[in-house]
């Protein structure tokens, strides 16, 4: 029984982790930006969604839509206010751009966290379940909401993979991740492609934030940990590799769930961190990393 419970809970948690990390890895793969304000964007989506759903009676679905839009807007603001000025600055040498992007987005993430803390306090909030009720799977009582969340994650990831593999835009994104200069020479505007990536990123991350609020609940104190989890998963899977991130999300999700159920809930984050350290020492490019 417990085995099945771990299997189901671990699947839902891992799917959510996968969705949270996929945008992060796409952003690095195509734009070369490691967005350390990632958790902050999830936070904005989750808190605004919750606020609209609870205080304005928009219901869970209205809240979810508002939350995703908020994530999108937060993503655009991150791009135009923080990332683009750093990329365009003449005073910053190209070789140090990465350092500046890391510190810039880190500071931006702190600003988001503190701002949200000020507006909504740091009390944990939980969004109403998208669907109420409990279903019995072979004797394990599982909230239907949990299944819906896992399914939504996979639908979103599936749509992303369709977009990347089957459409013209997706091919441009792939090309930009492989050889941006070549793409420019072929007459494509890189900044337009970057904007598309930030749009996709905002939608995915906003959705992940909303689902997270509905599954676990969220508090403004979590922003840093959310970024750290996404960072961990993405590095474990191999920077820029979407299948790698999904695989890593499952490794981390199941490692945490198994520890929480079988050993001790307080030790929950530790095995995943140890796995990460081990993988980085043996195989620094991550599980499915290219370079």
């Amino acid at each position, binding site marked *: 029984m417990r085995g099945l419970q771990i299997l189901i809970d671990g699947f839902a948690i891992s799917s959510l982790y996968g969705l949270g990390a996929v945008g992060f890895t796409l952003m690095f793969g195509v734009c070369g930006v*490691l967005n350390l304000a990632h958790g902050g964007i999830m936070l904005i989506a989750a808190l605004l969604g919750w606020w609209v759903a609870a205080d304005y009676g928009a219901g869970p679905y209205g809240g979810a839509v508002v939350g995703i839009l908020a994530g999108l807007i937060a993503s655009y603001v991150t791009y135009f206010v*923080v990332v683009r*000025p*750093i990329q365009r*600055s003449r*005073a*910053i*040498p190209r*070789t*140090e751009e*990465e*350092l*500046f992007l*890391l*510190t*810039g987005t*880190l*500071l*931006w993430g*702190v*600003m988001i966290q*503190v*701002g949200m*803390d*000020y507006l909504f306090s740091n009390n944990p909030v939980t969004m109403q379940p998208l669907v109420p009720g409990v279903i019995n799977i072979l004797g394990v009582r599982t909230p239907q909401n949990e299944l819906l969340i896992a399914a939504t994650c996979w639908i979103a990831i599936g749509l992303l993979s369709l977009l990347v593999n089957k459409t013209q835009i997706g091919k441009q994104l792939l090309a930009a991740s492989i050889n941006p200069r070549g793409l420019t020479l072929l007459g494509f505007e890189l900044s337009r492609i970057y904007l598309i990536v930030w749009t996709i990123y905002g939608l995915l991350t906003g959705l992940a934030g909303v689902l997270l609020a509905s599954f676990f609940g969220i508090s403004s104190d979590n922003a*840093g940990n959310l970024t*750290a989890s996404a*960072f*961990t998963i993405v*590095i474990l899977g191999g*920077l820029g590799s979407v299948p790698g991130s999904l695989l890593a999300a499952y490794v981390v999700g199941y490692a945490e769930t198994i520890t929480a159920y079988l050993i001790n809930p*307080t*030790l929950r*984050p*530790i095995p995943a*961190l*140890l796995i*990460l*350290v081990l993988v*980085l*020492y043996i195989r*620094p490019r991550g599980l499915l990393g290219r370079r």
Partner: protein
Amino acid sequence: MALFRRRILWVAVLLIVGASAPGWLGAYFLGVFTTAYYFGVFAMSWDLLFGFAGEVNFGPTFMIGVGAYAAGLMNNAGYSIPICLVAGTAAAVVSGLALALPALRLRGPYFGLITLVAVLLLLDLIVIFASVTGGEIGMMVPDVLSISATVNYYYAFGFLVISAVILYGLSRSSLGLILQATGQDRIEAAALGFNVTKHKLAAFCVSAFFSGLAGGMVTFYGGLASVDTVVSLAITVQIVIAVVFGGRRTILGAILGSIFLILAGELLRPIGQLNTFVVSAIALAVIIFFPDGALGWVLRPRDPT
């Protein structure tokens, strides 16, 4: 030469102002500056890795925390403060080495993440072994450096000045130059025959030494080692802010940044939680508009190196 004299003059003025501060500052502000000075050491030792070696080390609080907790545990076991400080520093250097030896094989974001993970693991360990470490509440230590604000101020000031002289000297030595070359073009530096890994390791040790010692000093200044004062990621963020604001790759800028940060934190206290927001926003504006930081911006026009 004129430039050199001018800079010496400025440093002398700052030294005199700093040394005479207890004469004209109240006990409250002495306390604020004491904190800022210890913070300055954290920031300087971080700058050695970030500014010079170009490594984004998200784990300065790993070394600071190990130093602070090791010193605190020794003190609780009945040893005197100097022995505890030595032990804490040694523990910080050893753990820094244990982290650096494998981690320096990694580059850029991978290095950053592994140092971040070290901090997260340390945080978890402190909470798990709460019976020894006091968990999230913190660990009291029986001894303190002094109960007089003036004496504490001089301890911090002296420590800051000595650390600054050593770190600045190192940064101007061949070690600093080679680190800088490595940070800018690792392959070329290696091709010129420098043992890149050895130099980075040396920088890591020096950084760990000062971080650990400062961590121990802070513990005996406040009589408490706690997650919030020496390990939390919020401290890392503040160190980053202090260095980028003051000007990375200047060592001395880190001191200015720390004083700015701590003073701003105090002066902005009336606006409550938002003070972190304002300080972060200022730091963000600085890195976008003046990527060389305050000191770098002041020095740049006159010093075209």
